[in-house]
Every structure is written in C-alpha cells, then in structure tokens.
C-alpha cells in the first residue's frame, strides 16, 4: 500500500515484478478453484453425456437428475440428518465446555494454573493411540451409539488454549467490581466474560463445527455396523472406495472410466452436497478465525 507514494518514480523492473505477482496469484487461485468448479459443473450435467469428458467450468447438458437421485438415496438422507445433528449438538456442548474450562484456568485467583495447563497440553501431543481408545469406548459402551460423536471429543486442549488466551486479556478490575456487586463466578462467566468474547466463541465454534461436519473416521471405526448412525462424509467415502477399488482391479483403467458402479455425476453431486454448507459458511467467519489463530499464538 505504501508503494503508492512512489508511483511516479516506479522503475520498469517493479512493474514487471508487479505483473509476475498478479500472474502467480491468479494461477494459485485457479488451481485452488478449478477442481471445485469442475465438480459443481459435473454435478449439474447429464450422467451419460458426462462420460464423454470435456466438461470444464460449465455443464454441457444441464440436468437436475443427479441431485434428485442423490436426495432419493436413503443412506444419504440418514447421513445428512446424523451429520447435522452431531454438528449442532457437539458445537453447542463443546463450545460451552471449552469456554467454561478456559474461564476457570484463566482466573488470576485460581491455584495450580500452570500445572493444570501442562496436564492439558500433554494430551495434545500424547494419546493412547487408536487401539486403546477404541477399547475404552467399547468398554464404556460408546461404540455403536450416536454419543460417540460428541461425548469423547467435547473438550480439546487446542480450543481451550485459544479461548484461555483471549479470556486472560480481560481486565481483572471488571471481575472484581462484579464480585463487589455480589456476582458469583457463574454470573461472571455468563454475563461478563462471554458477551465480551464473542469473536473467540465464533472462531472456536467454527473449528468445532468444521471438525464435526468433516469427520468420517469415527463413523467408520465405531459405527460401521449401525447404518442409522452413518454420516454424510462416510457415505461419500464408501462411494469413493467402491470406485477406487474398481479402478484398482481393472488393469486397463483406461476403459474402466465409463463403467463405474456410480456415475461420476452422482459422485460429483454427493461431493458438492457434502462440502456446500462449509464452503458457504467460512468466508463470513474469516476475520474471526484469522485473528483467533494469530493472536492465540497457537498453530495447529
């Protein structure tokens, strides 16, 4: 921005540099967007027509049939419902739990602050591993239930630390004056800290919601036999692996393109339906998560 003042004396090398910058960034943008746009275009194209290839940015033979087929699929509906339910429930409970904990450990009067932080930070780097966790969930009766999606992951050290950093920034005098007025810690948390920290709540809520929406590993691991608890992502995964295994078994992969079990357009429609909510949501929360990440001083 401060280049503007020197516009008059801009040397030719700087102009060339400016052009290179724009070209570079434009190609970054194209590479990022193309696969997504192409998939959207495919999802609106007629299935048989799409096999010929040559669909890039816009459908050639427009059709809504793919989406009609997809939304008529029972497993997709179930998956969508479960995914929405777990995302909403987990975002609410997990946000509350993380905020409460962050509130407690950020209080100046609280003893064992650093010891407790260490106790949490350890869990970010050390865990039991896939099998011990699986066995524990099994013993607790969590496998094969909906609860496995939202109960075990309720508190995460990362989210908690991001929130704690923010809450530490609130002046102590605010808390003390509230206490003089007779407010307890519950009230301080509910009526003073939380309204002041809406941006960080938004950031963490986004992190949790995205994580929940995108999870499929837990559905596969703990609820493989329970079709009523399948998720949208897991259904897409099943679709993909059937395609992958087929192209894997056919040696002449070149001819296999047209004969996949599921037409590529259906696959495209499921992919679009699965990513749409998040792709529409995140730009609105961008300014929150960018500051949330950088001020929090923590990196994933």
């Amino acid at each position, binding site marked *: 921005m401060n280049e503007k003042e020197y516009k008059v004396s801009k040397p030719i090398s700087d102009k060339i540099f400016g052009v290179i910058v724009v070209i570079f960034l434009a190609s970054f943008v194209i590479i990022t967007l193309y696969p997504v746009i192409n*998939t959207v275009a495919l999802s609106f194209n007629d299935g048989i027509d799409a096999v*010929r290839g040559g*669909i890039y940015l816009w459908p050639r033979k427009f059709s809504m049939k793919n989406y009609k087929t997809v939304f008529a699929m029972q497993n997709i509906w179930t998956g969508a419902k479960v995914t929405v339910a777990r995302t909403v429930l987990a975002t609410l409970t997990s946000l509350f739990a993380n905020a409460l904990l962050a509130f407690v450990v950020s209080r100046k009067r609280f003893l064992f602050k650093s010891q407790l932080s260490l106790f949490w930070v350890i869990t970010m780097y050390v865990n039991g591993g896939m099998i011990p966790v699986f066995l524990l969930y099994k013993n607790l009766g969590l496998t094969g239930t909906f609860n496995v999606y939202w109960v*075990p992951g309720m508190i995460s050290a990362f989210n908690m630390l991001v929130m704690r950093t923010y809450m530490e920034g609130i002046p102590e005098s605010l808390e003390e004056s509230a206490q003089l007025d007779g407010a307890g810690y519950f009230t301080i948390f509910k009526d003073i800290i939380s309204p002041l920290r809406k941006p960080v709540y938004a950031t963490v809520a986004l992190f949790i919601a995205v994580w929940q929406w995108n999870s*499929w590993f837990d559905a596969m691991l703990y609820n493989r036999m329970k079709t009523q608890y399948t998720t949208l992502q897991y259904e897409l995964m099943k679709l993909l692996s059937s395609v992958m295994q087929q192209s*894997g078994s056919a040696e002449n*992969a*070149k001819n296999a393109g047209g004969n996949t079990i599921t037409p590529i357009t259906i696959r495209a429609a499921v992919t679009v339906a699965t990513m749409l909510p998040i792709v529409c949501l995140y730009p609105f929360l961008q300014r929150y998560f960018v500051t949330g990440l950088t001020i929090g001083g923590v990196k994933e």
Partner: protein
Amino acid sequence: MKKNTTKVSLPKKKVSASVYFRKYWQLYLLLLLPMAYLIIFKYVPMVYIQIAFKDYKIGMSPFKMPLTTKNGMKYFIQAFSNKDFINALRNTLVLNILDLVCGFPAPIIFALILNELCFKRFKKITQTIAYMPHFLSWVIVASLALQLFAPTNGFVNQVINAMGRDSVPFLNDPAHWVATYIFMGVWQSFGWNSIVYLAAIAGISPELYEAASVDGAGRFKKMWHITLPGIRPTIVVLLIMNLGNILGSSFDRPYAFQNNLVMKVANVIATFVYKNGIKGLQFSLTTAVGLFQSVICVIFLLLANWISRKLGERGIW
C-alpha cells in the same frame, strides 16, 4: 519462573485455606466435570497401552492380562519382523519428508507474493479462496482428485492427451500416486498455513521499507532483504515443529487416497494399525506399533523444542 512468583506471593494473600476456599470454591466446582472428562477420555487410554506388553484377552482387565514372552517385548519383536510394518514405517517417513519438502515452502512463497499485491480487494478475495481447501475433508479432497486426475475424462489427462501423449495413471501407478498425494496435500494446506506468515509479515516495521525505498531498492529486493528476514524466526520455529512430527501419521488422508494398486507406497502406520487392529483384531501387536510411534514422536518433539530454544526462538511450551 511464573510458578515461583505465584508461590512466593501466595502466602501473603492466603489468610487461611478455608477463607480462600470459601471465597473461591465455585472455581473448583466448575472444574470438576472437565477434570473427570480429561482423566476418562485422555488419560485412561494411556492405561490401556500396557496391552502392548501383554497377551490380549477379551473381557479381562489390562492389569490382569499375562505378560508376553521375551519380557513383554514379544509384539515389538513381531512388529519389526513384519514386512508390512517395515513397509508402513518407510512409507510414513517418505511421505512425511516429501510433504515437508513440498508443503513447507508453499505457504511461505504464497504469503510473500500475496504481500506484494497492491490491489486490496483482489488480495482479500485471494486469501478467502486460498483458505477454502482447509475446510474440506480428505474424503472431499480425494473425490476432487479422483475427478481431476481421472484416466479418460479427467482434466489433467485431457490436457496431456491434447498434447498428443498417452494418459498418465495418476492414481493407479505407485510413483504417480505419491506425486498426486503430495500435490493434493499442498493444495489443501498452503493457504491456511500462510496465515501465520502473513501475521508475521504484518508485524514488520514499515520504516524498514521506507528506508529501503530511499536507498533505491526495488520491490523484489525489498521482499528478499526485508520481508524474508523479517519472518525468519517464524519459519525456523515452524520448520522445527514440523520436523518434530516427521513420524506422525494421520489416518484420514492416506486412507481416503489409497487403493489396492498402490498399497506398497500408500500403506502408512495409521492404516496398518487400522487394518490389523480394528479389522484384524490383533490388539496387542497394533498397540505396540502405536506405542512405538508415539514414543518416537514425543522424542522428536522434545528434541525439536530443545533445538528451537537453543537457537534462541520460542519453544512450543
């Protein structure tokens, strides 16, 4: 150091423990549930790790299971004589190193170039678009890749065909699969990872640029001699932290991308554990493998943190 100051100052304030707790008991009450949660879901699994040294018996407490032969090391020895595991170990290492080599510079380059852009609107839009892939799950990324690199009607192969060459089996040939896997990894993460660098760039003093302009430095020179050195500390810390995770392995990404034809390069530790543990029910063996991986990871992490502090940068804790 923080600990010391609290310990010194506390006795002054502490009239008596009972007064303190009468005043602040609410704080500790609020802590009860999260602590119970932490112990159950994060620390109890660590108790189960001992089945790595024991013969797993269904329905028996891990404490009562009998120790394996060879002083409990049976399954570790078994793992290292397992060709699949050695293969998974190698693949994990190779894929992580390639990820680091290709994926680490990408966000730095992107941040540097983005910083040079003068049009504020275009800059904002570019950033928003660049963050998008981070919000997609690996299943979606794999689905997009499957379409992009499809043998007959995928965009990349159509371009290759148009140039008069044969289609390249990007997803079915081991070497090409690795390239695709790494490419999509960079695609997914470069924008998101650039956030930290952009923040670091924003912290560089504008006076430095002004002084350089006075001295007649062009834009490229300014980028090279001011911006890049300015974010050097951030680069060093992140590089070291990434090195610390060199044997870490996620499950989602390799699993979403792999197929039978590329198993010999796509099988990593996490997928090995899934296949042999969850599906093959070899709980002791796979716990041993998981434990081995965790221990190596922690060692690397501590080492990385130590190096980072030795170099005068801040550690991660």
